[in-house]
């Protein structure tokens, strides 16, 4: 049995890249997400946009993955942007305190424009 997560990276320009996530953000997502993050970090981008449009299940293990990314992003002086998390995701991000370290945006465009 497999738990599906599809992760896709998209380079917008030299400064910004998007990580598109589709599926469940759980333990099974750790390698795909950190792999995608490393890949775009190797490109040297400064702005990392997570696209949560296609997710409706996150658990505490998934949140731990995102916290790990925040740690790395701070070391690399990157800015993290969370685009289109569901209202449930937003609530959880707020509860955990993730919103102190990453901005929430209602659309990918809004996220991208905020770092132009």
């Amino acid at each position, binding site marked *: 049995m497999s738990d599906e997560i599809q992760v896709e990276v998209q380079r917008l320009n030299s400064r910004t890249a998007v990580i598109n996530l589709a599926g469940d953000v759980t333990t099974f997502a750790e390698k795909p997400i950190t792999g995608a993050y490393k890949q775009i970090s190797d490109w040297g981008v400064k702005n990392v946009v997570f696209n949560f449009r296609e997710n409706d299940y996150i*658990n*505490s293990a998934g949140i731990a993955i995102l916290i790990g990314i925040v740690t790395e992003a701070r070391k690399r002086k990157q800015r993290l942007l969370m685009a289109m998390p569901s209202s449930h995701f937003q609530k959880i991000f707020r509860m*955990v305190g*993730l919103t102190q370290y990453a901005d929430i945006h209602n659309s990918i465009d809004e996220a991208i424009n905020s770092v132009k």
Partner: protein
Amino acid sequence: MELKIPSELGNEKIAREVAATVAKRVGFDAERIADIKMAISEACTNAISYGSKADSRNKITVILTAHDEKLEIVVIDPGLGGPPPSNVNNPDIEDMIDGIIPPGGMGLWLITELMDEAQFIQSEEDDSTEFRMVIYRNKNIEQ
């Protein structure tokens, strides 16, 4: 109603869908249903990972009881994880981000934030561990 599932990570989704269907049928709104789904997933993940050592020959049981104003959820595991913790720590996300403690350990805390009641009950009959949660249909109800 009662659900018995093999202790295999990923199977918590089955419990999650059942809980969502029951909660919807008894009139919980979308936000509360999302809370229930997350809480039951965390409880089942713990029952699978700790309480059953993620061995699919073991089974966990989920009992859902709809009352007039609340939904009661009990998750039972075979107790292979030893005695469950007696208190729940607030996660220190700053320490996690600073790398002082590893990210994690937020499951039980999330459950207590999302549900109206949550506690472990050590079974008196056997070694099994029971985790009981209650959520009210309306947040501001007199309890």
